[in-house]
């Protein structure tokens, strides 16, 4: 059935070239150097003006004076908090991309999609980051919990302490360390369980053929999608929303989902295009690329819809305890530019750039759009996490870029290594023929 595509000098397995490894190594070294430079800069700036400095105290208390919500005690800023905050951004961002890629695979099986049968190995490979990302998340949380998550401080729940916070105390039933850690381990564990089940049956399908595995994968994926719908929202509250402990938003789970999802789609599209340029995946035709481009376009708009739904209600209702979230970002010299950049990169750019049919059909447009959307959503996570952790002490410098490079090189290494483990084509997928002739 697949014979005649196989004959046409097609590379079936991805080869992780040493030249690619070398460029990833350079990226890693550049990242480490930039991080050291950035850390050094922050430490020296930290020493340059102490906290008694009047100019600094004005700066940091500009909204604290106006908005009484922040009257609660916060420990003074330390340089390593910025490092921790960045670690957390990268961990959440890359973990989200890998779980969303697995979600993409599951969706294809649930909907019994034919068009995507030929490309499923790429999102499957992106999922390889999941176990490593999960481990990193647990380690980093163990080190940084007090510095990132304000609610982890014991004194907030102690009525005799002057720093007692009754709002956070009210959320104690949900936001306490054992329950939080339990949820984190439970979700990561179950996600990984489903991922390994999917991998197992995919490998079995390659070996034995027939539609047995495909039917099994349908069942597994269905259960996973239902579980993911619930667990992803809770994970978003835990890992991102709980940083701004006082604040809450009912849109937040979807907001994080949309951001993860569109990033994963952009990465899948970009990887497929790059693989095609290097002589792999020659059976993936322009219609499949077109459909992937449509996904990136559509979910960029979806992200905007969610983002705006959250913003408009808070803007219009104008309740101080809700608006504080946007005041922190809009009234700040540090974050205001990123707020606008976020909207431009994640909405205006993909919306206008990917609107025409040609831009989604020809890879040179998508090759520009996908990295920009990916970076845009990194900025999105930067904006979700940094203002909550660092307040007015945040910034965007060498450290942010350096840590992104480090994580990116590790992430790419893991997923490219993962790509070599299975053949690039699912030769026994019952829908493969449909994917090869996909025509729109």
């Amino acid at each position, binding site marked *: 059935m697949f014979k005649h595509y196989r004959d046409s000098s097609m590379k079936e397995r991805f080869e992780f070239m040493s030249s690619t490894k070398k460029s990833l190594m350079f990226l890693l070294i550049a990242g480490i150097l930039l991080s050291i430079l950035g850390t050094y800069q922050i430490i020296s700036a930290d020493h340059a003006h102490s906290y008694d400095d009047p100019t600094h105290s004005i700066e940091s208390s500009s909204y604290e004076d106006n908005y009484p919500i922040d009257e609660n005690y916060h420990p003074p800023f330390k340089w390593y908090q910025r490092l921790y905050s960045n670690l957390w951004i990268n961990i959440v961002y890359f973990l989200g991309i890998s779980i969303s890629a697995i979600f993409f695979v599951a969706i294809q099986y649930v909907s019994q999609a034919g068009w995507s049968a030929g490309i499923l190995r790429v999102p499957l490979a992106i999922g390889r980051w999941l176990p490593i990302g999960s481990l990193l998340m647990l380690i980093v949380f163990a080190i940084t919990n007090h510095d990132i998550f304000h609610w982890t401080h014991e004194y907030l729940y102690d009525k005799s302490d002057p720093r007692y916070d009754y709002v956070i105390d009210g959320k104690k039933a949900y936001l306490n360390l054992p329950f939080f850690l339990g949820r984190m381990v439970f979700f990561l564990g179950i996600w990984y369980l489903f991922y390994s089940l999917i991998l197992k049956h995919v490998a079995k399908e390659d070996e034995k053929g027939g539609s047995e595995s495909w039917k099994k994968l349908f069942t597994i994926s269905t259960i996973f999608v239902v579980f993911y719908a619930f667990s992803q929202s809770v994970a978003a509250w835990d890992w991102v929303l709980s940083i701004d402990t006082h604040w809450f938003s009912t849109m937040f789970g979807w907001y994080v989902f949309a951001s993860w999802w569109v990033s994963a789609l952009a990465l899948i599209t970009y990887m497929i295009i790059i693989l095609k340029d290097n002589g792999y995946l020659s059976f993936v035709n322009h219609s499949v690329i077109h459909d992937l481009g449509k996904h990136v376009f559509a979910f960029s708009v979806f992200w905007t819809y969610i983002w*705006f739904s959250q913003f408009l209600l808070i803007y*219009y209702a104008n309740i101080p305890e809700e608006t504080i979230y946007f005041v922190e970002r809009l009234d700040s010299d540090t974050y205001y530019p990123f707020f606008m950049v976020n909207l431009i990169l994640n909405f205006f750019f993909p919306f206008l750039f990917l609107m025409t049919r040609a831009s989604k059909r020809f890879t040179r447009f998508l090759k520009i759009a996908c990295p920009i959307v990916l970076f845009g959503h990194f900025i999105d996570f930067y904006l979700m996490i940094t203002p909550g952790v660092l307040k007015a002490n945040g910034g965007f410098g060498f450290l942010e870029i350096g840590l992104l490079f480090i994580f990116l090189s590790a992430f790419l290494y893991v997923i490219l290594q993962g790509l070599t483990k299975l053949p690039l084509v699912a030769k026994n997928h019952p829908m493969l023929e449909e994917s090869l002739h996909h*025509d729109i």
Partner: protein
Amino acid sequence: MSDSGTKFVIGIYEDEDVLLNAISSVREKGVSIYEVYSPFPVHGIEDKLGYKRSRLSIAAFCFGFLGLSLALTMMIGMMTIDWPMIIGGKDFLPLPVFIPVTFEMTVLLSAFGMVGTFFVISDLKPWGIPKTFDLRSTDNKHVMAIEIEKNQMNEVELKKLLVSNGASETSIKVMDV
């Protein structure tokens, strides 16, 4: 049917695969096809007929942009220029508040405009009568119409060509176009 109309050769096809092959070979002979009528959408028929991509999306964009401008003009005119009002402590020009209405108007006008344009360009407008070469093209037969004057072949040759490419029957029809 008046004699003043245009003369067409009509070929009836039973099967869409036969039809698609017939379109290719008829076009290869240098014959220009006036139109093909099918009871259902046939995949890939536009490519075979050599149709250019529809410009309907341009119309959709224009109507959408019209909707956007109309909505913004209306709201800014009412809320900012004609009778400025402070609502919920917002500015006189609260753009985020205008976005939902602007979005709805854009979608509404682009959808209506697109449907209207489609009806007009495909002869489904209320004041027009759709050309039907053979009524069976609305039921179970595919109909290929070839304008005789625009081709070098004569009636007999065209009929022969259509039959040799799988037409189940052929006829001559005079239509006002």
